[in-house]
């Protein structure tokens, strides 16, 4: 099975219908010959880098297809040459890397960093797992996952793949407790925890702790060194813990008052940037302003 890709430029002065008909005609020609069409893409009207036949723009189409033998390609090319509506064409035989590239492009994976792609893959798998389980957590279960780094072993009836993200050190609090069915308490909690963990990782990954008002670059460094790398970490610490960390670290942190930091962090961890910003406007350097001081 050979994979080919043919790109052609259609005259733009034709009416929209005629252009579509032209592209459709070649599509049908391929199908008639027994080639399976993988994808037809309309790249749309584009400016040409140089004038062709005195025209400066054209409609680009790209058809990717499979064929047992390459016999038909020369016939298509002949048809392109004869057709006056086609300004240029190019047919290319795709190797396996080209096929994979095109497939990834259609899936939207090109242009994203590897991490985002992996993260999306994991998210998809989680969603597949948790669609069959009601996504509610029991109040009892929400108290449990306060501890960090507890790998989630989900002994569930469904076929859960054994790749619950154990290596993740971050454990989020379970979402606000909603009345849950007594049965299957562990499972939905586990699922949602895992899902929460995944989403937390997504939002808290490239974290800039200096977004919290009151945390500057030096303070952020000190926190990171102590192991607080995400908003969720910060949210789970108490103000006294943070003060202790700051005292232990080098630097002039006496001025800092971290009382509001965990709260700010909880907004940030949820991605609630609007609420955070509003509150930060009220805060002054991360401290709550009392009315007497004004």
């Amino acid at each position, binding site marked *: 099975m050979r994979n080919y890709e043919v790109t052609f430029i259609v005259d733009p002065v034709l009416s929209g219908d005629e252009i579509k008909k032209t592209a459709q005609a070649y599509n049908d020609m391929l199908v008639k010959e027994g080639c399976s069409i993988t994808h037809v893409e309309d790249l749309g009207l584009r400016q040409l*880098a140089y004038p062709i036949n005195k025209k400066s723009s054209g409609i680009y189409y790209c058809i990717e297809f499979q064929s047992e033998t390459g016999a038909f390609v020369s016939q298509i090319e002949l048809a392109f040459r004869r057709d006056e509506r086609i300004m240029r064409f190019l047919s290319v035989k795709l190797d396996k890397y080209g096929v994979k590239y095109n497939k990834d492009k259609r899936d939207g994976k090109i242009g994203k960093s590897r991490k985002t792609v992996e993260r999306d893959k994991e998210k998809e798998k989680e969603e597949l797992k948790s669609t069959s389980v009601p996504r509610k957590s029991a109040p009892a279960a929400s108290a449990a996952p306060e501890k960090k780094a507890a790998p989630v072993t989900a002994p569930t009836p469904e076929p859960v793949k054994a790749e619950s993200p154990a290596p993740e050190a971050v454990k989020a609090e379970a979402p606000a407790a909603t009345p849950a069915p007594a049965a299957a308490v562990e499972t939905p909690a586990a699922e949602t925890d895992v899902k929460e963990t995944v989403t937390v990782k997504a939002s808290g990954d490239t974290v800039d702790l200096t977004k919290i008002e009151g945390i500057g670059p030096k303070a952020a460094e000190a926190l990171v060194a102590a192991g607080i790398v995400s908003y969720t970490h910060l949210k789970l610490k108490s103000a006294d813990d943070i003060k202790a960390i700051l005292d232990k670290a080098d630097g002039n942190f006496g001025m800092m008052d971290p009382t509001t930091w965990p709260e700010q962090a909880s907004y940030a961890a949820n991605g609630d940037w609007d609420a955070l910003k509003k509150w930060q406007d009220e805060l002054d350097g991360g401290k709550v302003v009392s009315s007497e001081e004004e």
Partner: protein
Amino acid sequence: MASRDDIKFLSNPNIGGAAKKYCRFRKFGIKHIDYKDPDFLLQFVNEQGKLLPRRITGNSLKYQKKVAVAVKRARHLAMMPYVTDLLK
């Protein structure tokens, strides 16, 4: 002829050590170069639209050839110019 020791430079010639050049395709595992993506291909072409040499772009031979093929295909499809000014 002065020996190497006698030649003194006014500033250390190793200053501003050149960043190690590497082939970005081999480093990041990119196997296919799409000719339909002129924005990406502009990296390998100078302001006049001419292909840049390998010693400038840092590509390995295999991928420099693929880049060249892709640029030439893009030129045929009028996605990139053959020659121009002020391309970038």
